């Protein structure tokens, strides 16, 4: 008898939670617009959201937005790809070869917690201000979490898996490609998920420091000419790029680990 009533109550309840969940974001956007229009702060300190969106639209029409976004993405992703490949290769080499491990282990464990961004002026000194310098800085920063995760992942592979593969006549190469790397994949992907945001942060800082095109560079030149809508537009654009890349990486992880028990668990981020 009370079933329809219950369902209505549950629907109302769900709608309430949904409203609450969107309330934070809506309040932020509306609050931004209202605070900026109220005259309590100057347009320089906080340009209205509508003005910032107008600016982004203008940049999109003139094509500048796509040029800057494309360049930033290119630098971040090429740097990330090199760091990913190099990091995995070095991690595999370190876990297979004692001498390589002896040489690199101290360097990696001392270098990982260092703020490598402090080396940016050194990289500029050596490589100049163009893409090679920017991408090198990204690689220098993003490679450490990948190496560390690969080494930890491979070390954690169960011996029984490797022994049984050997017993069944697998060669070294087959063991590596078909047993060790897939078993270490969750750890390696975690390392890549740490490295990707680092690659983005470093790309933006390098662009701000070295100038030229790119989202970071565009923000810096807007700030130099005291065009605060341009600065806030930069934040929104960089936020969207970061959000899409990080969510995309999480999606790739779920695809790549569809066979792994982890994929059955609810994910947090």
């Amino acid at each position, binding site marked *: 008898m009370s079933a329809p009533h219950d369902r209505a109550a549950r629907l109302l309840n769900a709608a309430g939670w949904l409203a609450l969940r969107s309330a934070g974001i809506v309040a932020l956007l509306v609050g931004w617009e209202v605070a900026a229009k109220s005259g309590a702060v100057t347009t320089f300190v906080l340009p209205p959201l509508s003005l910032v969106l107008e600016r982004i639209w203008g940049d999109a029409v003139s094509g500048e937005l796509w040029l800057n976004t494309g360049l930033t993405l290119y630098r971040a992703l090429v740097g990330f790809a090199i760091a990913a490949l190099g990091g995995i290769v070095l991690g595999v080499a370190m876990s297979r070869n004692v001498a390589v491990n002896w040489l690199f282990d101290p360097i990696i464990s001392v270098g990982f917690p*260092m703020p490598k961004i*402090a080396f940016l002026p050194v990289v500029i000194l050596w490589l100049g201000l163009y893409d090679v310098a920017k991408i090198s800085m990204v690689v220098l920063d993003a490679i450490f979490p990948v190496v560390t995760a690969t080494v930890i992942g491979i070390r954690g592979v169960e011996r029984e898996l490797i022994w049984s593969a050997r017993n069944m006549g697998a060669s070294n190469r087959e063991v590596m490609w078909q047993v060790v790397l897939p078993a270490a994949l969750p750890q390696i992907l975690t390392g890549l998920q740490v490295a990707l945001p680092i690659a983005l942060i470093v790309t933006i800082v390098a662009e701000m420091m070295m100038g030229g095109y790119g989202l970071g560079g565009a*923000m810096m030149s807007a700030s130099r000419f005291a065009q605060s809508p341009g600065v806030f537009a930069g934040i929104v654009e960089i936020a969207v790029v970061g959000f899409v890349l990080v969510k995309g990486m999480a999606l790739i992880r779920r695809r790549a680990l569809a066979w792994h028990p982890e994929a059955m668990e609810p994910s947090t981020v």
Partner: protein
Amino acid sequence: MMVPRAQARVMTALSRALPLVLLALLWEAAARFEWVSASALPPLSDVVRAWVDMIASGELVTNGLASLWRAGAGLALSIVVGAALGIAMAWWRPVNALLNPLVELFYPVPKSALIPVTVIWLGFGDGSKILLIFLGCMIPITIGAYNGARSSDRALVWSARSMGASRARMLLDVVVPSALPELLNGIRTALALAFILLVSSELIVARAGFGYLIGFLGANGSYDAMYAVVLTVAFLGFAADRLYQMFMNWMLQWREQAT
């Protein structure tokens, strides 16, 4: 029995330090024999001498203190606010419904994008750096506290409740201690992030601090001094992480013994 073990430990430490010593020797040789230009890579011994000079003149100390104050203040604020937010999100469902979408939205944003905005708001001085570090470090701490507090043992919560513990007592005695390991991990991420944001913002706009000093010395062509500051910052970042790890292990051990 003890002596050989101690000897073995010293040998392992030496063997681990050897690659770093080799790297330093390679640096000195590359600069001395001019395999690379001396302006691109001054000899390590010159860098050490420049470091001693800057310590003696107080230049490195005053700028270093300015930087450490900014990083410390920003990080302290983010720990207080971030931990409170994370635990509140795990404790009250409406707070979680309200804030979780915002945390998810801001988590992937590259925090360095905020550098020019904090300058617009608070100028070139300490305030803008402290705000940047506070905003950047808060999210990993919030997420750590939230995940930790959320995973607190249901059975513990229920038994505490059935024994008549008040909500405030339960929060302090059950939820906060169980949030501790993940919270401490979040703070470790934040510590590394604080150094990155500090140096980046000081390199881009500042009138004092490590980053400012690096940029100033580089522009003047005093590369040996510039390298000295870069290595100092790198070492401080490394040392801070190691010290924090020791503190974290001590805290967790202490927690094990207390329960």
